[in-house]
Structure formats: C-alpha cells, structure tokens
C-alpha cells in the first residue's frame, strides 16, 4: 500500500519533513526574538518605538502569509537582489527567504501574546523594580518579561503549532518541504486520500507532542501569587 513512497528519495518523505522541522525551528527562534523586541517596543516609554511596534503588528498580521512569502521571493530576491548570503545556491537562498518571511509574520503574533502576558504582571512588580533603581530595560528583562513569559507559554504554544503548519506556505517559493513533496506525489500517484493521510499524520506527529509538552511546562512554571 505504501510502496509508492519508495519512488521518492530526493527528497524522501522523511527528508521533506526534516526541512519542515528546520523551517519551524529557525522561524520559531527568530520570531521569538523579534516578537519579544516588538513587545518591548510596544510597552516602551518612547513614543516613536511604541508607534513603530503598533504599526508593524497591525500591518503584518493582517497580510496573508502567502503574500509575504511570495514577496520575499519576487520582491526581496528578484527586485531588490536580496540573496541572504547565498547568491548561487537556490535551495539555501529560498530556504532562508522563507524563514525570513515566516519570522516577520509570526513575530507579530508572538508580540501580541507576550504583550498580553506583560499585562498580567501586576503594576506593583515594575514599580518595586524601578524603586530599587533598575533601568527600564532591566525592569523588563529581570522582572516583567520572566513573569510574562511564564503566563503566555500556552498562547505561545498555539503560535508555534500554527507556525509549524504555516511552513507549508514555503512550498509556494519552491522550498522542498513536506507540502511540496505532497503536491508532487498527488500529481504522480493515484492514491490521493492515502497521501493526504500520510502528510496529515506527519504534521500531527510534529505538533501534538509540542502542544502537550508546552502545556505541561506552562503548569510547571506558573508564577504563584
């Protein structure tokens, strides 16, 4: 029944899912960093930074991911000549462009999750930190964000699961991840339902443990008040 899978070895099924995993991990790390910086901007006392953070989030989260990913290829790469340090290696170039697009998009959601977490930290915590003489960035790094993160592990797990599935959009610019292989198989084979089931199962294998683990972590790390 699964014989047809052996016809594919570049990439193989596992190889394609490995690319999906890599897209997810790099984009997750990138969007966590960029999203945290955006959240810091949105609560900063400097109006210009607040304005930038607000504008970024409201513009980027309202653009379809497909448009962003296609723009990284047709816009950034083709028009502006951005090669992400790999002008001659198409595979690497489009992989990195896809990560860039995913980070830009996902960071908007990470930012909003973290900002809602910051709002759960009682204002007295920041006041006490300021009263000790800590600077704005110290207050944020040492007191507010560590508590905010713990309260938003659940919402961040949602973002991470969405990100894992959103990596399939990278197929539109030819990154050889799971969805691209699925498209190829569906074109070549007569077992559409089976192929669909195999790939659906693959994604569940990736996302289900992530969700369960982060749920457990969120309970474990919850700040007691």
């Amino acid at each position, binding site marked *: 029944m699964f014989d047809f899978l052996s016809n594919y070895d570049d990439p193989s099924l596992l190889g394609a899912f490995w690319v999906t995993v890599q897209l997810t991990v790099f984009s997750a790390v990138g969007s966590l960093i960029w999203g945290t910086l955006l959240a810091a901007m949105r609560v900063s006392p400097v109006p210009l930074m607040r304005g930038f953070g607000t504008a970024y989030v409201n513009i980027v989260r309202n653009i379809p991911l497909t448009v962003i990913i296609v723009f990284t290829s047709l816009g950034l790469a083709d028009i502006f000549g951005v090669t992400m340090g790999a002008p001659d290696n198409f595979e690497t170039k489009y992989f990195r462009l896809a990560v860039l697009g995913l980070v830009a998009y996902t960071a908007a959601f990470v930012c909003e999750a973290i900002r809602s977490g910051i709002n759960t930290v009682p204002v007295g*915590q920041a006041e006490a*930190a*300021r009263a*000790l003489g800590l600077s704005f960035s110290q207050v944020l790094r*040492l007191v507010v964000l*560590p508590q905010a993160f713990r309260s938003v592990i659940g919402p961040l797990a949602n973002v991470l699961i969405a990100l894992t599935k959103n990596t399939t959009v990278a197929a539109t610019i030819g990154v050889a991840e799971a969805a691209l292989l699925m498209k190829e198989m569906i074109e070549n084979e007569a077992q559409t339902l089976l192929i669909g089931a195999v790939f659906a199962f693959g994604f569940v294998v990736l996302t289900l443990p992530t969700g369960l683990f982060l749920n457990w972590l969120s309970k474990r790390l919850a700040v*007691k*008040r």
Partner: protein
Amino acid sequence: MTEVSVAKEDVAATGDLVVLKSVNKHFGALHVLQDIDLTIARGEVVVVIGPSGSGKSTLCRTINRLETIDSGSITIDGKPLPHEGKELARLRADVGMVFQSFNLFAHKTVLENVTLGQVKVRKKDKKAAEERARALLDRVGVGAQAEKYPAQLSGGQQQRVAIARALAMEPKVMLFDEPTSALDPEMINEVLEVMQQLARDGMTMIVVTHEMGFARSAANRVVFMADGRIVEQASPDQFFSNPRSDRAKDFLSKILHH
C-alpha cells in the same frame, strides 16, 4: 543574630535630606497635592496621617518619582529630582520604598529578591550581596525563609522581606506607603517592630500609615494631610493631645474613640 548597620554612620550630622517646595499635582480635575512644603531632616522620622484620598500616598510616591509632579521642586540630599533616565535610577537606589502590597518579585526567591538590586544596581559581587541579604533577613526575623518564594510566606513575613530588600540598597531615606494596611491584624505588630527598630537606629523615614500607636511611639513629627494640603504639623504628643485644626480634631475623634 548578626548586627548589620543599616543607617549611615553620620546620622548625627544635621541637614535637610528631603525638601519639597510648593509641590502641586493634579489627577485630571482633582488637585491631589496643593502647594506642599515639607522638609525632612537627616535621621528624622516623619509620619504622615490623614483621611483616605487626602493625597498622602501620592505625596510619598512623588519623592522617588513614581508619580510625577506638575509644579514645584523636590530635592534629595541637595540634588533636585532628575527626570527619567539613568540619573533618576541612581537616585531611586538611594531612596528605599516599601509598598502597601509588598510587591516582592513573585518569580524570585526571598534571597534573590534581596540580592537583585545589590547585584544589578550596586554592582556588588553575588557572594557579598548574599551575605548582606542573609544578615538583613535575620535582622527582620525571616532568615529561615530565604529559599522560599514570596507566595509561600505570610503577609507580615513578605512585608519584612520587602523592608530587607529596600535596606539592602543602603538607602539614605526610607519611604513607607501604608506598610501595614494590607496585613491581617495579628501580623501588623511584627512589621511595626522592625520599623521601630529602624527608627531607633537613626534611619530617616517617611511613613504613611493609619497606625496611630506607631506615630506616637516612633515619630519625631506628625504631618496631618487633608484634601491635598498639609493641614497641621506637630510633635506626636502635641498632635494627639492637643490638635489645633478643626479638621484634625474631627479626624482624631473618629479614629480614637472606639
């Protein structure tokens, strides 16, 4: 119990430490602080009392600029209160603050709460900071709780940790914003005793409180506020036995006779 010096050696040195001159502040249409003039000498313990909404907490919070003021000036140890930025942070480190709701850092242990400011602001090394933290925790009687998290402590214990946290910065002056108002009655005394000891050691203190017993026994001066103004200032004896203003007489009659 280890002896820890909390007050500067030169407590006897005279001079004005905190000076407020014609300070005004509005919350929207509400004029919460109206032409406040107040001078606190080094080593003095000033207790601020008054009815709710009289502006006494706001007054306390303006002194380390947790609340900004609209006009007037505040100087601490001769230096005017800076605007936001590094200067302000440096000044805040010299002004200890104890809050009504304790505000211990919920994700850090008691010990970490007391070392954080020493390490990150005073740039002490971790070992010296921990040593001082443990000594201070012993001093306020919660040394055994050093490894616990704030939520595992009673309110009175948390407030004593908060006092230790402020003292760890070796402040020039301590502000207490209704430190016992959120406590169960049986825990009020343990906090007041720590504050009384501090007063005896010569710490300059500004205390907003409803504890008239503390005002009588520990204060050098009582400041009575109502409707955003300082209505009366006097020594505790004089104030409680012979208040001059009608507003103060009215206030005292409501709180002392039952």
